[in-house]
């Protein structure tokens, strides 16, 4: 650029030629821009105007179908089906009020104008569709389709909708989906207003896998807002599938057995912690939550006195009642305060601290050993066991066996329950522990409260010899190509050191609860398979420790009747299933809960015959005579408290 360097003495003239050159260059560039503008705005004007007129291209977000949910044998439980939503673009309608009127006539109701007004209120950009009604039923879809020409601006939007194939089946476990909330939108950037998100249960916990990746569409619509063609599409990626450990048939058997009852049932595989069935009744229909739950439905669910939204299996805390005697027995045997041949005389009650503590059997059990004390569920015997142990040793063993702690199942809001100890009472009530309270604890009353899944855990620990597996209900996450994206191997949460002798004593006694004379759960018996069980009764109101026996169940109003427990595992020799079942206000465990457990186990062993297979277990096993024989053994009056 030396040629621009002037020889003048003044400094400015040196710059001047380059400034002139620069200015000229700048104006030339502007000139080029002018040429381009002339080309676009004059020469291409016609074409561009047409493009602008026809420019009714919309950018659509295409929601991805959520992943499927299968049972352990890969049968679908939850899938995604196309649902129809009605949308309106008010700007596309030539006569909006007329269109709204027609639309309201077809859909029934007068909410369309309000929805548009509400959307405008929230700053809807022009030409952005307003969602009028979601999940239209078939007649409405047909009606809209047939009258499309009279409804300019109205369109049917096909979106993937969550569908629960078996309605209320395992509703608390599967959960439900709903529209993403404001809080979720702020926390997570992948969601947009109106997206579906898992709100509860599996749908919530496994949301990142089930969600999938939404796609996008550039859609051209005509003058009345009808889609003409998709110009460009970024395909969506459906969510990954989840395979549960639940067996559909076992779950169905459990749901059926619990039909009409309030309560819960949890069945787990004691060898892995796999949840085979989980029922909480009453249940809700997860389909009503899909895309916009109606406020009336929501209110009905919230105000239902039976709390259908509560998952009783993990959130219901109840006194374990006599099922707790298993804990006493194990604790006593392991702590050597109790031996197999320890005998005690039950006269129907025990005087302690100036007060009588009853046995459920008014006339008493006479002189009784440990085995029979468990089989017949003698309260007085276990008052003595409890006293010898003291509350803190009972608490230690209860925790070791899985009670009073969260089991770790991956569902929200699991309750830990309460296993009292002297330290617990000091902390909670700033009061020392009174020995008399130990008596209540020993028979699973007083402060003791556990969840059904904890008692299932207890049954599983006794069944497998001491290992606490974390209950898991997801077996695997499957990628779209069917490969395993994530597996869930068994997780050991803890281990209780139980001697083989202790286990043998407790298991023998539990087997006789079902099969022996005087046992309290004859109704749980299966032909050819030794079922081990323990009944329990959870008192509903007050009178902790003072047990009034002999009242006729039927005379007590239902809401004051006790809850019925049964914990069980089978087969005794090589357990494959452990169950806890509670029937609220069912009365005695043997009468109300045992038949439920029987039905579930019967179905389970039809599908998974015990190993080594028992020759007797064929279809004949499930037939009437077999059950009748079981019932004959038990006149049904062997109630217990």
């Amino acid at each position: 650029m030396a040629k621009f360097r002037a020889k003048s003495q003044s400094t400015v003239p040196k710059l001047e030629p380059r400034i002139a050159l620069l200015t000229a260059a700048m104006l030339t560039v502007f000139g080029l821009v002018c040429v381009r503008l002339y080309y676009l705005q004059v020469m291409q004007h016609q074409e561009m105007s047409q493009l602008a007129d026809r420019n009714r291209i919309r950018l659509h977000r295409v929601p991805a179908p959520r992943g499927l949910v299968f049972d352990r044998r890969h049968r679908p439980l939850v899938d995604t089906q196309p649902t129809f939503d009605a949308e309106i673009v008010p700007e596309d309608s030539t006569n909006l009020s007329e269109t709204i009127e027609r639309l309201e006539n077809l859909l029934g109701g007068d909410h369309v104008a309000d929805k548009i007004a509400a959307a405008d209120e929230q700053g809807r950009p022009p030409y952005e569709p307003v969602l009028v009604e979601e999940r239209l039923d078939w007649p409405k879809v047909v009606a809209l389709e047939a009258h499309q020409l009279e409804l300019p601006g109205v369109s049917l939007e096909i979106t993937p909708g969550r569908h629960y194939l078996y309605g209320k089946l395992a509703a608390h476990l599967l959960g439900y989906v709903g529209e993403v909330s404001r809080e979720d939108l702020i926390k997570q950037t992948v969601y947009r207003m109106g997206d579906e998100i898992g709100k509860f249960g599996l749908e919530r916990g496994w949301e990142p896998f089930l969600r999938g990746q939404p796609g996008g569409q550039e859609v051209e619509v005509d003058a009345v807002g009808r889609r003409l063609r998709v110009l460009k599409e970024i395909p969506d990626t459906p969510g990954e599938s989840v395979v549960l450990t639940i067996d559909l048939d076992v779950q169905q058997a459990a749901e059926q057995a619990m039909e009409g009852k309030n309560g819960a049932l949890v069945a787990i595989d004691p060898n892995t912690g796999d949840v085979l069935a989980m029922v909480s009744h009453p249940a809700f229909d997860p389909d009503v939550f899909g895309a916009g739950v109606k406020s009336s439905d929501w209110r009905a669910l919230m105000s239902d006195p039976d709390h259908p939204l509560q998952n009783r299996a993990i959130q219901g805390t109840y006194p374990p009642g006599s099922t707790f005697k298993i804990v006493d027995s194990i604790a006593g045997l392991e702590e050597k305060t109790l031996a197999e041949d320890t005998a005690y005389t039950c006269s129907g009650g025990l005087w302690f601290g100036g007060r009588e503590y009853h046995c459920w059997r008014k006339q008493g059990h006479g002189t009784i050993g440990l085995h029979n004390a468990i089989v017949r569920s003698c309260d007085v015997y276990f008052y003595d066991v409890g006293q010898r142990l003291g509350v803190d040793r009972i608490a230690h063993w209860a925790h070791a066996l899985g009670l009073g702690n969260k089991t770790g199942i991956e569902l929200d809001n699991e309750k830990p329950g309460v296993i009292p100890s002297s330290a617990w009472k000091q902390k909670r009530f700033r009061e020392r522990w009174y020995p008399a309270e130990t008596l209540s604890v020993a028979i699973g009353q007083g402060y003791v409260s556990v969840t059904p899944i904890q008692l299932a855990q207890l049954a599983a620990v006794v069944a497998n010899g001491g290992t606490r597996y974390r209950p898991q209900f997801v077996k695997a996450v499957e990628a779209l190509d069917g490969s395993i994206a994530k597996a869930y191997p068994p997780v050991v949460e803890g281990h209780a050191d139980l001697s083989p002798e202790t286990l043998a004593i407790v298991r023998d006694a539990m087997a006789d609860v079902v099969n022996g004379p005087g046992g309290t759960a004859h109704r749980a018996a299966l032909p050819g398979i030794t079922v081990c069980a323990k009944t329990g009764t959870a008192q509903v109101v007050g009178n902790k420790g003072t047990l009034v026996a002999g009242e006729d169940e039927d005379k007590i109003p239902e809401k004051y009747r006790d809850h019925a427990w049964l914990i069980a595992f089978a087969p005794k020799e090589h357990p494959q299933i452990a169950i806890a079942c509670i029937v609220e206000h069912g009365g005695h465990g043997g009468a109300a809960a045992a038949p439920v457990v029987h039905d579930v186990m019967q179905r389970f062993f039809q599908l998974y015959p015990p190993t080594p297979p028992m020759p007797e277990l064929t279809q004949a096993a499930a037939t009437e005579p077999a059950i009748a024989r079981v019932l004959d053994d038990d006149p049904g009056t062997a109630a217990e408290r």
Partner: protein
Amino acid sequence: MAFDRRLIIRFDWTIFWTVLALAVVGLLSIASAAYRGPHKPIDPLVIRQCVWIAAGTVAMLTVVLFDYRALATYAYALYVIAIGLLIAVELIGHSTGGSRRWINLGFFHLEPSELAKLAIVLVMVRYFREEPPKGGWSLRQMVIPAVLLGIPVALVLKQPDLGTALILILITVTLVFVSGLNARTMIVLAFAGLCVMPLGWHYLKPYQRQRLVSFVNPQADPLGSGYHVIQSEIAIGSGGPWGKGFLKGTQARLNFLPEQSTDFIFSVFAEEFGLAGSMLLLSLYAILITRGAWIARHTRDRFGSLLAIGLISIVFWQVAINIGMATGLLPVVGITLPLVSYGGSSLIAMMMAMGLLISINIRRYFF
């Protein structure tokens, strides 16, 4: 210092009114971009821009009172402050849309990269105000300017703000050219520039590369970045010779244009005011540039002359790149249209720059 009557007599009304005319064009375009229908209240964006214009006018007149020659003393200090603000953005900045560009001052979101443009002009002009050696600046004397440029460029690229980084480089190149280089330096720098380009590609973010690809072939990704350019061209072209009329544009209404009130404001304006309006707008910028160049030629000191060049080069490069992008001549980079686009920082910084230009014009007689 007593008020100097010459400040009024020699006040540059051409620049003043041109600046205000451009601000009004901006106001109209923003009102149009934010228009939501006849029954909707005026968008807060419009009201805020009015406030920025008022504040910018005050800032511009304040700068006029100020003797620009003092800036030579403070140039490096101001540069350090601007760098400090850019670093502050890194640390406490406010991010929108994936990039961190703003410092929240409560009442105002300060965008320090706008101030960085003024700072880089000042510091370069300060460096080049010395008379170059015979034959022009040599390569060795380019090291300091390269470092002075490199620091803010690296900082804005980190935000990431490719547009501002580009502007900083172009301003510097312009000033280096005008201040005089020797032939050897010029060839080496040009060659180095060519070599850096493919290397630059390597450092671009995927979306920035995408924009370059879709510039070469908009149809490659019509749903993504190519889409914006196509829609912008349709907006401008459908405006025709005379435009669709104020608030009658459809492209803007349909939300086809991204950043309608900032980076793509020209498309909104050109759609409603047509070729006539676009020509008027370009003429206003041409007036600013020729007037600035005239001032540069008629100022007696090298500092004032180069400063005027630096200031108009900010205007020129932003206009050229912004409109070039909107009309599909250049790839999409986020650069505002000076004095027109929505935004307090860029508007006030630009009005201060124009105030400086007026200040130079007034004081060229003072010797």
